């Protein structure tokens, strides 16, 4: 069972298309694993649509003549065949700043059906995983390996926001660290635990800089992570690793 979900404000911003790419991808990936957040997102989508298009300020200047106009249009239209390219934007009553745009759009007779993508499978250290659809068109760099850790850089990174796939082999751990910014983790497969609790597939964790943690895994795991800054190791051998903190997350 999934116990850790994105906050409502985050889902709201995701649906509004306001999050950076890497965060949009990680929220979308959680929604693929979590039915309840998925339902929530769709409801929010519907409410945002209603709000956006019902805004009174945006209403068109409809008047009582429009019924007449439409009837006229209709009659006029009936005299044209659909293939008749002389059917101009003017006849169609789109005779304002949008006229050229309208004409260009309808000149295109083709239809578009998105290709159904096969799920993307990846292999890390002899384990095969199926990636969320949200990652289908995100490019992955080759795996960087350090002991039981493997990391692949994702091109959904933008500026100071970095996104990775992280694989930890059974019994592995990430040295204790804090974050200068935020670190978001989604478990795509397997489980891990830290000082704060246990996490399994689908769990979505948002950690800020006040959190200090040392994730370990019994059975191994594959995670998707987004961080807006390099992590900072706070103890032991991790301290020596500090310069490569940015290599792991």
């Amino acid at each position, binding site marked *: 069972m999934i116990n850790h979900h994105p906050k409502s404000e985050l889902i709201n911003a995701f649906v509004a298309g306001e999050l950076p790419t890497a965060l949009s991808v990680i929220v979308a990936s959680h929604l693929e694993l979590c039915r309840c957040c998925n339902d929530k997102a769709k409801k929010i989508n*519907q409410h*945002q649509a209603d709000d956006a298009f019902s805004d009174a300020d945006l*209403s068109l200047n409809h008047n009582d003549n429009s019924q007449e106009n439409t009837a006229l*249009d209709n009659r006029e239209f009936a005299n044209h*065949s*659909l293939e008749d390219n002389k059917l101009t934007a003017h006849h169609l009553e789109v005779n304002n700043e949008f006229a050229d745009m309208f004409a260009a759009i*309808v000149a295109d007779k083709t*239809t578009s*059906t998105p290709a159904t993508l096969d799920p993307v499978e990846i292999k890390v250290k002899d384990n095969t995983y199926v990636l969320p659809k949200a990652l289908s068109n995100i490019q992955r760099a080759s795996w960087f390996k350090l002991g039981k850790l493997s990391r692949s850089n994702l091109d959904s990174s*933008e500026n100071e926001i970095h996104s990775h796939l992280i694989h930890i082999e059974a019994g592995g751990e990430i040295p204790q660290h804090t974050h200068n910014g935020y670190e978001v983790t989604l478990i795509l497969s397997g489980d891990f635990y830290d000082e704060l609790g246990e996490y399994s597939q689908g769990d979505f964790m948002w950690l800020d800089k006040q959190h200090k943690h040392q994730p370990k895994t019994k059975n191994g795991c594959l995670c998707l992570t987004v961080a807006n800054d390099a992590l900072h190791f706070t103890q032991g051998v991790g301290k020596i690793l500090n310069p490569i903190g940015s290599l792991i997350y």
Partner: protein
Amino acid sequence: MQTATVNYPKTSHNDQMSTDNTGALIDFMRAIATQRCQHAFSQVFKHFAPKIKAISIKKYGSEALAMEIVQDTMTNVWRKAHLFNETKGAVSTWIYTIMRNVTFDILRKSKSSQEISISDDLWPLDEYATEEKDTFQDHLQNQEILKRVNELPNKQQQVIKGVYFHELSQEQLAQQLNIPLGTVKSRLRLALEKLKQNMGDQHD
């Protein structure tokens, strides 16, 4: 060619626009999908293009960007009309979904020299443009319940929210709140009784 059977809006007073146009919009979408009907498309276009432009200008403050969003959105409406499923949701939700998706891709491409569109992977059209029939009712009821829950004493709120909103088991909740399982159970019972009472009140 059965274009004459297309139903057009009967009235279009401002305040009734959304309800009046719902049925008509679906008919227009059907005509675009099955007959590539330019007239039907012009009606959908006239209804949405100015709104999309206004929404985008309000949000991004750029007319050029707004026109690009209108163009990409309406191009998708024209070329993907056959994918619209009227049994699944409203035309406006479908078009909102397209608008959000094309906007995301346009902004991403301008920011990071990315060429590939990924928005349809994040917000699949066939999923997002759908609604459950009873969604609105659910929504109202949820609002009402949430309001009532927020009126409960803090400790009762905690257990109700933990169990029903965060889907924690009573054991997990006891652990998290660091209280005995028995206390969780009794708080939950009290809270539910109170909720039932309060929800009942409004029907008296």
